[in-house]
């Protein structure tokens, strides 16, 4: 199984790429035999692991540089590393890339069947002419969802996680390389349908958006608190069906706020269009902020370059001025 994402080895696929995306660490219990210049042949574990020096056993190479018979050289090594540190570092890289290019990235998370893809399709259609949109689609198998997105004209990359239960920052980074997004675009990342695992994996997005449909239980925020805690926005979807259901909206929103008091809630229906304008405004506002951030960055870079030129000109002036 994969170290980074937990997927079955070799099962992650990104459209347009062959094979697995990240290297797999594996224990080396085989040895490598080789012959030295002096003709002696011996074997030792592969480089990077622990080698016996020239076939001898060196007890004195331990950290204590000594060996007392029967005494173990056990010592403590301080690590203090986040278990998800590797993913977090890759996510920070994605986040930096998004900031430099004015990309507003949202990570859409929900259980399967909440209407994520239908909502996405509707959102893209309504944003036509107002924003450049691209999509990363995460599913265990098939490119059905990416096909649905591409039918709207928006570029989309399907990431199949194989047995994996979530997208990770590395998969998103690789998908980005294949998307060639223009600056100031909206990037919608549709995560694998799963209300548990994607909560822990930062992809570098600006916000996690959790989608809950009214055909599900109103107590889902209590049952799956981690996801509702990690999200900044909740879209309560399929509200056009409320007249036919016993779904208590107030109770649901109350439960969500118990888990995350700062959670913003928008009620929407991709089918009837209810609430969609509020959702689009939220997206466009985020996109404006991302664009403003990029422009400010560019200004800052231009300023520092100008300053550098002024310094160099002053140096040049000083150098050519006759003494």
């Amino acid at each position, binding site marked *: 199984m994969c170290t980074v994402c937990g997927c079955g080895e070799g099962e992650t696929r990104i459209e347009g790429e062959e094979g697995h995306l990240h290297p797999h660490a594996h224990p080396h219990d085989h040895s490598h035999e080789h012959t030295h210049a002096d003709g002696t042949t011996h074997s030792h574990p592969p480089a990077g692991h622990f080698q016996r020096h020239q076939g001898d056993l060196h007890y004195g190479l331990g950290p204590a540089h000594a060996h007392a018979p029967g005494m173990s050289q056990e010592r403590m090594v301080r*690590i203090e590393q986040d278990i998800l540190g590797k993913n977090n570092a890759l996510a920070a890289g994605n986040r930096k890339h998004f900031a430099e290019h004015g990309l507003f990235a949202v990570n859409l998370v929900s259980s399967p069947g909440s209407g994520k893809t239908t909502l996405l399709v509707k959102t893209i259609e309504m944003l036509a002419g107002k924003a450049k949109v691209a999509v990363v689609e995460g599913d265990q198998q098939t490119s059905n969802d990416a096909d649905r997105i591409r039918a709207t004209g928006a570029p989309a990359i399907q990431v199949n996680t194989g047995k994996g239960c979530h997208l990770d920052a590395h998969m998103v980074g690789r998908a980005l390389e294949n998307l060639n997004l223009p600056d100031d675009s909206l990037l919608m990342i549709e995560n694998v349908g799963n209300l548990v695992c994607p909560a822990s994996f930062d992809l570098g997005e600006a916000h996690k958006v959790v989608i809950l449909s009214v055909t599900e239980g109103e107590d889902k925020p209590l049952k799956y608190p981690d996801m509702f805690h990690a999200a900044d926005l909740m879209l309560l979807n399929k509200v056009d069906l409320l007249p036919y259901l016993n779904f208590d909206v107030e109770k649901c929103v109350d439960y969500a706020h118990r888990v995350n008091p700062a959670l913003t809630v928008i009620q929407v229906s991709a089918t009837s269009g209810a609430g969609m304008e509020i959702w689009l405004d939220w997206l466009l506002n985020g996109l404006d902020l991302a664009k403003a951030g990029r422009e400010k960055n560019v200004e800052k870079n231009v300023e520092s370059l100008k300053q550098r030129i002024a310094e160099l000109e002053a140096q040049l002036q000083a150098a050519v001025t006759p003494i």
Partner: protein
Amino acid sequence: MHEMALAEGILQIVEDAAMQQGFKRVTEVRLEIGALSGVEVDALSFCLDMVLKNSIAEGARLELDKLPGTGYCLDCGETVPVNALYEACPKCGSYQVQATGGTEMRVKDLLVE
């Protein structure tokens, strides 16, 4: 949750440290797991047993430091203990509690030879 992925992450951290510091055997792995991290400790322990097989940490003892959950109650303005993300403030009963601690998942230290 995705305890198998976490276990593989722990092995990678251990192997990276071994490469840098040149130890050849790990006898104990100490983790810090926050009460609000979403990690199922029994599942993680089970997955680690499997993942560490044939590695330098095969058979290593697993020590778990469980860190308590804490939160800041917006209504009473105090830091309070939190057992679960959906719980009310134990002081005032308000649900306006923002988690501030206990979401950690860290490899703290190793005993090595």
